[in-house]
């Protein structure tokens, strides 16, 4: 009775809403009409014959508490593994950064000393990749010892005592400097590989841009595709393209570094001059300052044939090693603009004279 009274007291819309909800209220004619109209779409098929169900190892549902326990245990295991990794990492003394360079990749173990003059040493099987977003990336090969000398906003100065590094530098030219026991390597906007063996002899191979090599006033410029050797106490030899003939390269190495007889030296120079191609003007330009005065004329004549100088470069000036004429001829060879190097030399002498590799 009470229920009937309550129902009667409800507004019509509420009573018809009840019908829409659970068919319990007063039927709404519109909804009834829709139900009647749409009933023809109703599901009316019997269940099909289902295939056999092969019971298998179904996944069991674990109680909520057990799930939390399992999740907590998993997290604890992960945390433990992370802690073990950190401990192992620290035991191997591998910091995440070396002298401001991030260690972006490491294979095997490496030793890195802390504090000033940080040293990175890789063993025979380890490799490290260092990256500085403002400077570039260095891949350090196995068996390498790299020391940091100085780091400023405008200078990254390190020493490669031995081993091999592959440098890809995007800092402005002249800001990435690597000393070796036999020459100083100056990046002039490039990618290169620098190797130093146990005797201190070095080899630089440029793959992009160009590199300057310097020791005690002896300098070499190595453009992409070229290489250059160095020897302790001698400094950098003549740059050469790596696709030159084997005879050419061997004779050049003897001429640059070996203490041979004057006859042998003349023979080696003859081989280099005879086998030089147009692009080997690179090597001949370097030989101008390395040949004896008596041999310099031969080099000049051959270079003049391969790359005739423009006005302003004279035979006499070259034979007396006039700096401005040599620079002009270098620029005419088209490998790079030597004024960048000269600017770097002036700036280097002014700011870093008192600082150098020990």
């Amino acid at each position: 009775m009470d229920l009937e009274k309550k129902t009667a007291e409800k507004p019509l819309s509420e009573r018809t809403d009840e019908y829409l909800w659970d068919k319990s209220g007063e039927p709404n004619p519109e909804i009834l009409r829709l139900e009647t109209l749409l009933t023809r779409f109703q599901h009316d098929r019997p269940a099909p014959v289902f295939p056999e169900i092969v019971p298998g190892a179904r996944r069991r549902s674990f109680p909520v508490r057990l799930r939390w326990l399992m999740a907590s245990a998993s997290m604890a295991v992960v945390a433990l593994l992370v802690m073990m990794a950190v401990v192992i990492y620290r035991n191997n003394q591998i910091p995440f950064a070396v002298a401001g360079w991030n260690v972006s990749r490491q294979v095997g173990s490496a030793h890195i000393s802390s504090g000033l003059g940080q040293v990175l040493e890789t063993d025979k099987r380890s490799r490290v990749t260092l990256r500085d977003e403002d400077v570039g990336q260095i891949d350090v090969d196995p068996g390498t010892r790299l020391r940091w000398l100085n780091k400023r906003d405008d200078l990254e100065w390190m020493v490669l005592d031995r081993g091999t590094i592959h440098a890809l530098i995007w800092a402005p030219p002249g800001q990435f400097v690597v000393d070796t026991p036999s020459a100083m390597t100056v990046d002039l906007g490039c990618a290169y590989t620098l190797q130093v063996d146990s005797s201190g002899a070095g080899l630089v191979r440029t793959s992009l841009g160009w590199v300057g090599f310097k020791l005690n006033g002896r300098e070499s410029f190595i453009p992409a595709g070229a290489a250059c050797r160095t020897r302790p106490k001698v400094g950098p030899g003549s740059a050469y393209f790596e696709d030159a003939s084997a005879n050419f390269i061997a004779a050049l190495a003897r001429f640059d570094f070996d203490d041979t007889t004057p006859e042998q030296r003349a023979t080696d120079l003859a081989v280099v001059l005879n086998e030089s191609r147009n692009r080997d003007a690179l090597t001949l330009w370097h030989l101008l300052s390395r040949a004896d005065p008596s041999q310099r004329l031969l080099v000049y004549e051959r270079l003049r044939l391969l790359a005739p100088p423009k006005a302003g470069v004279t035979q006499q000036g070259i034979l007396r090693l006039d700096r401005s004429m040599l620079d002009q001829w270098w620029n005419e060879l088209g490998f790079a603009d030597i004024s960048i190097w000269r600017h770097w030399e002036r700036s280097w002498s002014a700011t870093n004279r008192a600082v150098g590799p020990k």
Partner: protein
Amino acid sequence: MICSVVLAHMASAPGDPIDLFIPGLCQPVSKQAAQEASEDAGLVTAAQDGDRAAFGRLHDRYARMVHGVLLAKVPFQEVNDLVQDVFLTALRRLRTLRAPESFGAWLAAIARNRASDYHRHSLPEDPLGDDDMTTLQLAVANGADEDPNLASKVLEVIKSLPDAYRETLVLRLVEGMTGPEIAARMQMTPGSVRVNLHRGMQQLRAKLSRSMHPSRQETP
């Protein structure tokens, strides 16, 4: 707490059969729904163990729901085949169902995916034109049965509503399920089913009357 209050308010109209609330899940359910869910879970477990009859009973319980979910999205003539596909898919994947009590929601998801697959591989359907809408509204209002396509046209209007409304309306108006049944089978809260039914009907009425009174706006 806020959740439970909101849901209780949404679902607690006088006479609403809500008498059980599961704390933590924020999901009010009726005793009957809870009992059915428990029975369903038992059937699912039995089916997982290879009981084909149990799966047949699940089919009987859920076929209308699957049929309605599909009918809300695909043409009527395709629905029966797709219903069978959905149950066969469910049968194949039954072992992967970790929570037997979620069978309804899981099955509805399979049905929705199957409908989406159907649309990916079929041409788009032609929407109703303005002339169809006018005829339709007049026919429904006058209770006329002359147009043999009237039912199809009404169904198309329902299918033009937003997903949540059309599915619930098809289950209620076509499959004849009550709101509490829909909530129990689909594992939805009674409150949200009630809201979907109410708003869905409002939108359906608006769509039907719009052709007669073009200046009216649809209720959001």
